[in-house]
Structure formats: C-alpha cells, structure tokens
C-alpha cells in the first residue's frame, strides 16, 4: 500500500495545481484544520460514549444501549439535542467574556491536536518545539475556564474557576517537569525526533526506573490538568452545582464538555508519544506498513484513556488542601530528584538501548 500520509503537503500540492502559491497554502491550512475539526468533534463524542459505557461496566450497569446499534448513536443524539437547545445566560454576566470563554477552551484543546504524529508523516504541524508548544497550549485552556467562571457572575462558577486556576497552575509544573525528564534522553523537543529516538526502544524502557516514575507523575498530574475525578473539585457536583459552567447551556456547555474529553485524549496522546513510542509498533512488527501506525497510536492512546477512566471510577475526590499537598510536597520534589537521576543515567550511558 502506498498511501501518501503527509497530509499537509499532499493537499498543498493538489491545491497548488489549481491556484497561486500564497492562496494555496492558506487554503491547505484551512482544509487540514477542517479535517481535524470534523475528525476530533466526532472522536470527542465517541470518547464521551466510551466513558459512559466504561463507567457503567465499572458500576455493574449496562450503560447507554438504546440509540442505534449498541447505543453507538447515543452521543450523536445528545449533541443534536444540545444544538437545538436554547442558549440561556444571566443578565448580570459580562456578555463578551461569557460568550468568549467556551471558544477559548475548545480552540486551545483543538490546537494541541495539530502536532501529534499519528503515524509517519501524518502530522499536521511538525514544529521544532513540539513538547514546549503542547505544554504552553494546554495551559491556555484554563484561561477560558477562569473567564467563564468570572463572567458568569455566579459564586459557584467563580469558586469553581478559581479552584481550576489553583489546580492547573500547580499541576502544570509536574506535567512539564515529567516531560522534561524524558527530553533529557531524547535531547529534542520535536515530536518527530522523539519518535525517531524511540526506534531503539520506547522511552519508558530506555529510561527504565526514572522513566516509570516520570510516567506515574505525568499520569497523576495529567489527570489533574484535565480537571477529571479524582481532581474534579472544579465542578464538584455536591458543592458547586456544575462549577465553572453552571451558567452555560446548549452548545456552549457542549464545548466545555467536549473540550474535557479532547483534553483527556491529548494527555493520553502526549503520554503515548513521549513514553510509549507514538506510532511505533511493538518490536517493529509492522514497520513496513507505516499507515498501520495510526492503529498503534490510537490503540496506545485509548489504553491510557481507559486508565484515566479507571482512576475516575475508582478514587474519591480530593480536598483542596490535599490536592495542593500532593502536588507541592510529593510530586514536585519527587520530580526534581527524578530529573536529576535521569540526567545522571544519561550522562553515564546507563539507558537501555536495543
């Protein structure tokens, strides 16, 4: 099979044959953006469905199984319902910020998707500061949450948003540092190069002990970043109603909801890329068929997504002080020591290479 996977270039070349260069590159960008938007809107909906089914299985229930075969159309129907719903708002809301907030959240999470190497060359934007870009983009989403909470003019929303601020700012550190631990091995921030390094063994094997610690820290901090249980004080139903999106309805609520699931996918996808060899197959069994990389990438990502769902349906919610203790007294010092150990291991050439 010889499918051309380099989507941006393929589309650009195709468009160039029809129009002048400048127009063609803009048109190519728009096309690629639209393709990603459609794919991930649908993927986000299916992640919601997956979450609901998995949750049901954890609780010995059956889960949504009525709409369509096996309930596969359930979230589509939900989305349609949300689109048709009235957009309510509060009179005292700061209208501009209130309307802007959901777009901030969804756009920042969609932007992060552009840099993932789904398979060899199937990557919209291979920026040379890939990991840095991801860390930066993933913290922009919190501005949307803060704006939403602030402009709703609702005390629950405000408390939720402030908690989210506290949480994301603290856990951002751990996410960044645990990824930096792995960058010590690869020596590059570019995602395609990180994958290249992993051809000699996935980084979690190459870096052995410190890599596993870094992975654990990353998963904890990543779950906290997406504001999911057990770190979901942002929208703690029992105390805050729905937290920062209490005042949102219809499609604007759906944006927040979808963004949460896309963020979960992003966190899992970063972990896949940095720790588990992205699209590389185990032992290189499908090396000759690069398009199978998509399958491996999504497979690994979904396993990690499942892990996060497993966390969610197992652990009770943390208190704010416990949350900050976990970050500042445990994760951060462990992380700093871990990065040192990793540096020593790399310096002494103790990494495992195949």
């Amino acid at each position, binding site marked *: 099979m010889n499918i051309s996977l380099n989507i941006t270039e393929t589309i650009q070349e195709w468009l160039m044959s029809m129009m002048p260069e400048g127009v063609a590159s803009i048109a190519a960008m728009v096309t690629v953006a639209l393709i990603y938007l459609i794919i991930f809107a649908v993927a986000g909906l299916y992640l919601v469905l997956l979450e609901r089914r998995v949750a049901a299985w954890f609780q*010995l229930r*059956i889960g949504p199984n009525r709409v369509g075969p096996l309930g596969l159309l359930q979230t589509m129907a939900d989305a349609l319902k949300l689109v048709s719903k009235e957009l309510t708002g509060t009179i005292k809301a700061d209208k501009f910020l209130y309307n802007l907030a959901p777009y901030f959240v969804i756009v920042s999470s969609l932007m992060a998707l552009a840099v993932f190497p789904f398979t060899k060359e199937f990557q919209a934007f291979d920026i040379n500061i890939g990991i840095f870009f991801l860390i930066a983009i993933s913290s922009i989403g919190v501005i949307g949450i803060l704006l939403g909470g602030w402009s709703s003019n609702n005390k629950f929303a405000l408390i939720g948003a402030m908690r989210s601020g506290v949480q994301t700012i603290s856990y951002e550190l751990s996410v960044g540092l645990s990824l930096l631990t792995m960058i010590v091995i690869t020596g590059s921030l570019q995602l395609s190069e990180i994958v290249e390094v992993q051809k000699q063994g996935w980084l979690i094997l190459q870096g052995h002990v410190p890599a596993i610690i870094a992975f654990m820290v990353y998963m904890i901090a990543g779950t906290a970043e997406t504001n999911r249980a057990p770190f979901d004080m942002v929208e703690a139903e029992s105390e805050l109603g729905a937290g920062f999106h209490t005042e949102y309805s219809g499609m604007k609520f759906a944006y927040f909801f979808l963004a949460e699931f896309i963020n979960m996918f992003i966190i899992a996808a970063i972990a896949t890329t940095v720790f588990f060899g992205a699209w590389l197959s185990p032992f290189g069994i499908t090396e000759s068929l690069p398009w199978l990389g998509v399958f491996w990438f999504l497979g690994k990502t979904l396993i990690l997504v499942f892990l996060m769902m*497993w*966390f969610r349906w*197992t652990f009770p919610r943390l208190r704010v002080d416990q949350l900050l203790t976990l970050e500042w007294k*445990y994760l951060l010092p462990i992380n700093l020591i871990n990065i040192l150990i990793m540096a020593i291991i790399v310096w002494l050439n103790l990494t495992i290479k195949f």
Partner: protein
Amino acid sequence: MSYFSDIYKGIKTLLTGMSVTGKYFLTSRKGAITQQYPDNRDTLKMFERFRGEVVMPHDENNEHQCTGCQKCELACPNGSIEIIWDRGIDEATGKKKKFIDRHIYHLGLCTMCGLCIEACPTDAIVWAQNYENSTYDRTQLTKVLNRPGSKVKAGIED
C-alpha cells in the same frame, strides 16, 4: 521517614482500590445488577421492599382494615393523605362509630417515605409493587384508596 512510608502506603491503597474496580469491570459482562426497563416487563419479579405506591388491600367481601383513625394523615410529612370521615351507627353494637368515607392519596405528592404505613395501627395500607405510575394527566395521580361500597372489617378495632 513517614514521608516515604506515606508514599508507599498511598500507592498501595490506590492499587488495591483499582484492583477492586478492575475486578468489577471484568465481571460486569456476566451480569449487570440493573434491570433493562421495558424489555423484561413480563418476567420481572419485583422485590418485596420495593415502594411503588400506597394501596389499601380489600378482601373478597370488599372489606378493608382502615378504621379512619387518621394516624397516617398526621404522619405524612407533606400532606399526601387526606381522610374524609364520618360517623355512623355500628350495626353490631348500636354505638356511634367513626368510619372513612374516602381515603384520598396524592401519589404526585408522595415521597415514598413510608411513614404512613409505619403509623397505621391496623396495617390497613401497604406498599404496592407496581412501577409504571406515569400518566398524561396529573389528576389521575390523586387516588381514592378505599373502594366504593367497601366497609371496615368487623372486629379490627379490638
């Protein structure tokens, strides 16, 4: 040193929790504990302690056990029960006696707390096990529990 043992204990307890839910996850396919509502209407056997609605059982002579004491009406925290009573002559003894005219029960108000059933001294009202209570008109939720022409069972007050 409790710092490190805390970390160890934390990880251990989290893993214990995950193994419990993990086992549930793997066995869930064998049998969910929830019921699939419209599918099993014919075979479903309801549970004894299920609280469908409050009913007043009548025997074959159209006799119930309600003496009209109004204890259930008093016990109900949200006024779902209204008893319209009257006095009449007891045929057996010839004395004046209280009896119910209508025992009105508002299913739409009831929170299924069961206090009325606890309060009834003669066990005249019990829980029914039906569950399809939805109607298109809420006046249908106001029910008269004693059947027309029914009367209290003899000797129930003793």
